[in-house]
């Protein structure tokens, strides 16, 4: 909490929040959609950390995934397609006391919002950024997204995407001043929870790419990965996540990876055949923009009046 002027632990003792306290409207996602599990993980992490619902803001863009705020019983901002990050950063800029979550999709974040993605990573404000990457535009009914594999037909590219998919991890790991980069699959509840919990605890922008199943439009993408566990590589480390053997054994392909090692993280991300799961990179000390943008927050009215007059003096005759 260094540098933050929040007071968010003040009331926690006399209020205990249950999962129900974070649940909003009934989710309207399709049956079997990976979004349900991610939402459950978010509710649990909120409950476990006992964050105050009124101090929590879930921000999103537009897409299936961006419906998430409606399913929270906190404050929420369901804004424009691609623009969740600028709004979330703006909220955090002068309200570092608020706990800000961002839910966005592969189209929302990696396509229309790509500029904001790069820059938000660099601002490194304290946000928990969950990218629901289903490899497709869900809400608008099956158009190619930047991460759609070439062999998956879509309504805009019936014979498959024309170009190889964008690798969001290498892009993110290439941005200056990143502080937390992780990847998970929606269908492993323990991994999901551990990583989102760590992401939330981290002070800085925690980028979590969630490989999310959309059984309605691109069932093959999820199925393939579920059937070929060797294509996934679980990363564990004392500085990253540590899982029970029971969970670990679900991943035949595993590695110890120190998340403070950026070069190693980049090498793992580069591998297009095997998807690393867990925390790729973590730097708790990267500068956070909100510590700069929140200057002057506690100035009194008298101080401001004096400052105003000083400013006018600069132009006085």
């Amino acid at each position, binding site marked *: 909490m260094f540098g933050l002027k929040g007071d968010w632990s003040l009331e926690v003792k006399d209020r205990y929040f249950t999962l129900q306290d974070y649940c909003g409207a009934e989710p309207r996602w399709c049956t079997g959609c990976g979004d349900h599990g991610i939402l459950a993980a978010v509710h649990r992490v909120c409950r476990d950390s006992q964050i105050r619902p*009124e101090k929590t803001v879930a921000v999103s863009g537009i897409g299936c995934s961006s419906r998430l705020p*409606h399913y929270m019983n906190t404050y*929420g901002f369901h*804004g424009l397609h691609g623009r969740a*990050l600028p709004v979330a950063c*703006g909220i955090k800029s002068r*309200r570092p006391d608020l706990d800000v979550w961002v839910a966005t999709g592969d189209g929302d974040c990696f396509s229309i919002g790509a500029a904001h993605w790069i*820059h938000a990573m660099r601002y490194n404000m304290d946000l928990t950024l969950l990218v629901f990457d289903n490899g497709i535009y869900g809400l608008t009914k099956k158009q190619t997204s930047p991460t759609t594999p070439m062999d998956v037909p879509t309504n805009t590219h019936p014979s498959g995407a024309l170009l190889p998919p964008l690798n969001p991890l290498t892009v993110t790991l290439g941005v200056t001043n990143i502080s937390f980069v992780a990847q998970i699959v929606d269908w492993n509840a323990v991994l999901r929870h551990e990583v989102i919990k760590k992401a939330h605890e981290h002070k800085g922008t925690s980028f979590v790419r969630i490989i999310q199943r959309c059984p309605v439009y691109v069932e093959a993408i999820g199925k393939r990965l579920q059937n070929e566990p060797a294509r996934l590589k679980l990363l564990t480390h004392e500085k990253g996540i540590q899982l029970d053997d029971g969970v670990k054994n679900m991943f035949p392909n595993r590695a110890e990876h120190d998340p403070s090692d950026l070069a190693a993280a980049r090498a793992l991300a580069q591998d297009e055949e095997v998807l690393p799961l867990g925390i790729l990179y973590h730097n708790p000390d990267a500068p956070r923009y909100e510590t700069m943008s929140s200057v002057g927050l506690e100035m009194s009215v008298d101080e401001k009046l004096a400052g*105003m007059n000083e400013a*006018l003096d600069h132009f006085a005759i």
Partner: protein
Amino acid sequence: MSNQRISGDTKYLFKRDRTWWVKLSVPRPLRGVLGYDLRRSLHTQDIEAARRARWEAIEEFRAKIEKLRAEQSGEVAEAPAATVSDPDRTRPAKDGIRRVDQHIVEIVSDSGEGAQKCGQILGLVSGKMGNGVWTVEIIPAEIQPPARERQGASGIRVRMGSKKITNMGNEADMVVAFNEQVLYSRIDNGAYRKGTIVLLESMWAEDPDERIRKQYQEALADFHAQGLIVHELPIQKECLKLVNDPRRGKNMFVLGMLCRIYHRDTDKAKIEIAKTFKKKGDKVIKINHDLFDAGYAFARDNLDYEFEIPAAEKDRLKSAVVINGNTAAGLGVMAAGIELVSMYPITPATSASHYLAEDFHLTGGFVHQAEDEIAAIGFAIGASYAGKTACTITSGPGMALKTEMIGLAVMAEIPLVIIDVQRGSPSTGLPTKVEQGDLLASLYGAPGDSPKIVIAAATISECFHFVVMARKLAESFRTPVILLTDANLATGVQPIERPDVSEEWFAAPLDQSAWDENVAPYDWDEATGLSDRPIPGMRGGEYILTGLAHNRHSKIAYDSASNQEGMNMRSRKLTTLAATMKPPEVHGDPTGDLLIVGWGSTLGAIEEAVDLARLQGKKVSTLHLRFLSPLEPGLKKIFSGFKKVMTIEINYSDDPDAPMINKENRRISQLALMLRAHTLIDIDCWSKVPGHPLQPGAIGRVIDARLAEIEGASSCSA
């Protein structure tokens, strides 16, 4: 009537707008001081009375000329007053100070020679001496245009007066030109008249390049032929005595010259010079002070021009600050208690943020330079949603990018101040030049119905106060407010009454008290459309803001009734605001032949032209609108008091005389279009996109032409 011939003796007499005037030509050598001729109105329409009255004036004119001639030494008789290309021919200063009411001076140079800095300091010093001032920057669109090119002209106009000055005025009285080519672009703009004094750098006469020497000589002859009074001055040569590269520094020499010519306070000038070069260290300040002193001494020893512009403005203003419109807007942001300005650089808006970057910390604020304009407004919207007052500052192309976000702010009722410093359009347009082209886009630019408050500042003072008002309106009406200013206001420097900032101007502190759970986040009042909003941190107020159609509970609602209700409520807020307003005040008589309607930065020029016309007995008045959405009430009634109503604007309309244009297909200017729809009155317009502010002289000619039409029409029907 005005064309009717008068037979008989009209010596020294001429008629203007039915009134007789007297004039006497001034001998050539004295024109630099007295102008082309001496003239004044005889205040009579009767030729006999004029014939009798003229002699007194003629005698007075002759005495004035004789006095000046006596003061001047005999040797000046034929040569232009101060051709000092040859230093040996310089003459000592004369004690001929001329008192003038106002003077317009321009400094033009190649880009990078610092003419603007020179003029800005001259303007600042004049303002600080208590003179009325208005400056207009002459900016080439390119950063590094080629040297000695007409289109590369960079510079500044400074209009100084005894009283308040509200606009750039007509032709300049004096111009300092660093080369002869840049002068041409200003001549093409009609910036000068016969008798304008030109102080021209003479180094080009000896340039090693024959082509340049030739250009220079040709231009010189041309300027003389056009009636400009040219004095060639060895500015470069003089500066070389102090510095190796006078391209940097010449401007301070010229500033010294002008401070001598206009009797400016040299201490004040030196303070401003020191401020300008503060970051470069004492050595640089010293050399610039030396250049200033050298220029001052040079003008004293070599030029006969000395003007005094008494400072009456200081009596009018209790205490003043001298600022341009962008600084005013920046100070307004601070005085409004706005905490965050989120922006992306764009001319001519950026300097407001430059200013804030210097001083915003004094009131605890922060400037966020975003990755683009969409992010800039998104960031501001985020802060505002979280209960912090925020503002975004931009210009036309940036407004275009922000459109979707503005629609979101309207839909979700997020308070926000958006300042649009308008520039030439469309597309990248004329980045540095003035236009009033964003009016309709501001009102109607977003998809669907997107009612919001739009106001326009007409003065530099309003650039300040309207930000304070915009912040209050945004919060009271839970809506974005667009404040339109423009490139003319942005860079125009003027002394304004120092605002007496009060703590009520500041936004209320962040409210984190609990919210009554029974009150919906959009608890629209049926009668007004207004509602209070919960702020994150308020317990019990949790809601999900959405840009989708929603009901009072901020729940997504696709049903017809909810959609209609939301639309009604958002629109009703504007009606509520309009109901609180009084009809605007007409400048001039409330009835008459012609009413000019304007908005934004044209106020000063329009009122100056209208005042002059009224002095001449013409029945013209003007109305200047500050609120564009909603419009102020009572317009139809006001308009019905005039035979003709027309807008004057700096945006595009078809010239009525252009090929194929007729009354039906003519595309008219933006305010005219709005007012016609609003009042169903046949409102005419005169609008131009010259890339510079409108001048009172041009507006005066429009007034005359329209009055003649009205007179013609009524005499036909009579």
